[in-house]
């Protein structure tokens, strides 16, 4: 089957950020082509905790507005469920949970304090070690794997195209614009290019002579067998993020990450480590009533972070037809809104529903090249190499 050798907008990266952007563009009737080196949503997009409670972000209000509609908008199930409960086992944990709630309150959302008794009514598996918590009438969670496939299919339903198993190998720049994207299947011409390639976003920026500081890291999650459904599945605490799925599994992550380097364009490995035991412990501490429940699965993923941990969603000035998009390891929940923002950067040169000044690339203009070493964001090998 022959394909047109280009598109009005080419999106490099078939993760949740690129797919959401592509879906928004396709809905608007734009000719979109997503180039994905493997299978859509295979990396962090399909491996995260599914949280959708990021009201602190410039995208936060739109995130909250969109999620309840996403099933209908996409035409495929996301398993989105509203509301969140924070469980605290210590006073500092309670203060943190309240902090998240208060940030939501600053944005006009409602929340309530929970004492231990109320907590136990809502979350039967917490124990006497819980001191209290929060009930957020905002936020929520969804199924990352199902959602990312939903974006992909919805994008196609609107006439957009996705080429899987098509790694991008280069960018052709002429006259201050990217004119084509080079791949293992040959070149594809483009009027605008969105680079939403997770940890590789920085590598592509490099090709354009643009410095986007990113540090990849490996993180892990665990999943238990299903247990009876709780009234609110979006419950977390004790240094864990995650949720109870609609099937009943407890799916949680947290704890130490490992700073890594990822090879150019190749899929990184995502093994698990003995940390799964420490995660199991944290989970059993959080939910003593589930201490007997069996762990059946774990997985790892690689995420990327900018120096301040905040996204870069920005349109470059040179080349002038490129949008860089990294959500800096917090991409799934914000994806409905981030995708819309990216589509507006493509179509209008700016985001119309939110002020993205805080997410501009220029804030890293003075970041030194050795920023990772200076921050200590290095893995053991690299650190050993640094030691005099």
């Amino acid at each position, binding site marked *: 089957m022959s394909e047109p050798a280009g598109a009005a907008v080419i999106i490099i990266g078939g993760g949740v950020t690129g797919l959401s952007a592509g879906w928004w563009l396709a809905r608007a009737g734009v000719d979109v082509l997503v180039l994905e080196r493997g299978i859509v949503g295979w990396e962090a997009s399909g491996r995260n905790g599914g949280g959708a409670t990021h009201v*602190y972000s*410039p995208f936060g209000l739109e995130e909250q507005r969109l999620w309840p509609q996403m099933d209908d908008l996409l*035409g*495929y*199930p996301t398993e989105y469920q509203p509301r969140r409960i924070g469980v605290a086992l210590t006073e*500092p944990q309670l203060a*943190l949970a309240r902090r998240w709630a208060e*940030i939501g309150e600053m944005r006009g959302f409602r929340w309530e304090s929970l004492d231990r008794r109320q907590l136990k009514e809502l979350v039967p598996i917490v*124990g*006497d*070690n819980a001191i209290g918590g929060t009930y957020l009438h905002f936020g929520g969670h969804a199924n990352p794997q*199902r959602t990312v496939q939903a974006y992909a*299919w*919805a994008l196609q339903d609107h006439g957009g195209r*996705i080429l*899987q198993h098509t790694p991008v190998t280069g960018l052709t720049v002429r006259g201050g614009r990217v004119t084509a994207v080079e791949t293992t299947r040959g070149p594809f011409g483009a009027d605008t290019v969105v680079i939403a390639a997770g940890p590789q976003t920085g590598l592509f920026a490099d090709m354009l002579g643009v410095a986007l500081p990113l540090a990849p*890291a490996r993180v892990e999650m665990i999943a*238990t*067998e299903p247990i009876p459904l709780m009234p609110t599945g979006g419950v977390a605490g*004790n*240094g864990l993020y995650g949720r109870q799925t*609609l099937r009943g599994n407890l799916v949680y*992550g947290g*704890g*130490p990450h*490992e700073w*890594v380097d990822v*090879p150019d364009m190749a899929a990184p490995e995502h*093994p698990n*480590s*003995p*940390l*799964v*035991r420490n995660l*199991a*412990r*944290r989970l*059993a501490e959080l939910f*003593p009533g589930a*201490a*007997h429940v*069996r*762990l*059946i*699965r774990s997985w790892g993923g*690689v995420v990327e*972070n900018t*120096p*301040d*941990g905040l996204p870069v969603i920005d349109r470059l000035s040179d080349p002038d037809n490129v949008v860089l998009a990294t959500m800096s*390891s*917090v991409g799934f929940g914000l994806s409905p809104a981030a995708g819309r923002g990216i589509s507006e950067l493509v179509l209008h040169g700016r985001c119309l529903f939110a002020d993205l000044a805080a997410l501009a690339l220029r804030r890293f203009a003075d970041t*030194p090249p050795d*920023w990772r070493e*200076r921050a*200590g*964001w290095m*893995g053991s*090998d690299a*650190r050993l190499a640094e030691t005099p």
Partner: protein
Amino acid sequence: MNRRGADERGMPTRLAEGRPGSGAVRALGGVGSDVGAPPRLAEGRPGSGAVRALGGVGSDVGAPPRLAEERPGYAGAVRALGGVGGHVGAPHVEVDARSITGKAARPERHVPLVVVGAGPAGVAAAVEAARAGVEVLLVDEHPVDNDMMAMDVPLYFGGRMQPAVRNRSLMLERVVESNPALAAAAEAGVDVQVGTYVWAAFVPGPTFRELDGPLLGLADERRSWLVGYERLIVAAGARDVVLGFPGWERAGVMGAHAAAALLTRYRALAARRMVVLGSGELGLRTAALAVEHGVEVAAVVEVADAVRGDAKAARALADAGVPILTSHTVREARGRTGEVESVVLVSVDGETKPIAGAEREIACDTVCLAVGLAPSVELLALAGARLRFSSGLGGWVPEIDGSMRTSAAGVFAAGDCAGVHEGWLADGDPARSQGRLAGLAAAESLGALRPAARSPLRASAAVPPAAGAQVHGHWRTWLRSLIHAGGWDVNICQCEEVTRRDLVETRPPRYLAWDSASMTARNVETLLRDGPINQDQIKRLTRAGMGPCQSRRCREQVGLLLAEATGTPAERIPLPTFRPPIRPLPLSVLWPADEPPAMREDWVSWFGIPTQFSPHWEAGMAIDEPTARGRLIVSEE
């Protein structure tokens, strides 16, 4: 939690170490043990306090926080990188205290050679290495605990266990007695640990560097621990290939390997009248074994038009009153309750389609799948061994050389897990030869043995495993016949209740109650247009393989169905990944009692970057997640 022989954590103390020559087979809590009944966690009662007994909750969570040190590092660096105020990071090497750096897991024990699996290959490997002077730990998970068996892990037990399997010390006795080679191994100086699961291998890699060396995760029914190794020989055997049919959810449908284990190792098979599916060596041997142990075998069923196994064995069965019904398949397993009471068979024509009117119902309480065996390669995969597809060896097998070395440094494979075919079931010699070779090769690589000592084994025809007849075509024939006879609305994944139809139509789970034209338009064929079929991707969409049995009952049949439905050769469907734990274990068992303070003190849920979750409308408002070490920092600059 004051039990004789228990430490302050309520954990049983270890028995006298099995030092070389001591002849002790260590069975934690079992034979020869003076430990009392294992501490049971109060199950499912919130706030029961049982977790506290393990030195957990309340012990160090909530300890008085020490003041956060004003240490250069992330926060200082960020300020230097354009944030507000602050100072330039110190010129020495920084460490992210929230990362895994410096917190590498330490094993409880380090052994030069671990052999996993005490079947013929594993024992032979362990003994050979021990004789060469290597310190060897041999572990075997049998007897598996009753809860695990009820989940059909690691074998397809089908609920046909006698209540005696709950008696742990009795099962330990039986497992040890049924395998005299274990005692011989102990005599040879091998440290033998039965009733011990190996649930993971952790191996350093490009994205996993914070590890001093490879580790295995071990566990029993009470706790887990880590063991470091120099060399690993995996002799994990094989398990039954499972194919479903209407009624296969009923107790009484089980696998041949499980039946053999229950008959010979546990002596606890609760079956009175059995129908065996499959007339290859596996089926014929299973039928003979059952008859030998007093189980009535009502029939052996074969979809092909001729007996596939040894003619003599088939005649012996016929003489014993066991009919072999060729050109037959299963229509349904019936029973009024959740138990099998009969199985309905149907004759098939040359295209494996049922012949109208040619049904027969056979009373039985057990239907034993003996269609084929799949090498158990999950531990090998975790240990980094490359796998290849070989239909003559049962499917995915490790790549190995003439010394049973896999592609992973220091990791060997021996026995059925390196490749299995029915022609070898009658003969334990290939497994033993492979085991000996692996044991010698491991010993040699550890410097314990000179190469000359190995030569008598070089001529063994068993190595590398010689492939038998290709099996996937035959398994697909079985599958086709079962679909013809039973239809598409049959569960292919019992754990998640995914039917064959759900799978090929990539339907989301029923509990989502999703109905849309767009979803209905999507199926494996449309998925195929976007790329080659990937079983992990289909698992994500349909949930087939996501259950507690860890896809032991559906992995092969899903692969076969996908191959069948998309016209993809079986070898072109990528192996679905294995992840730890490769045995389902309770959180309370995986719980590490030996957690170092550094792990807890700097534990945060995400990266601990103060600006990451701070409100964008108030620049400079940082939120630092509290750790056990420091207080909550909310700075406004």
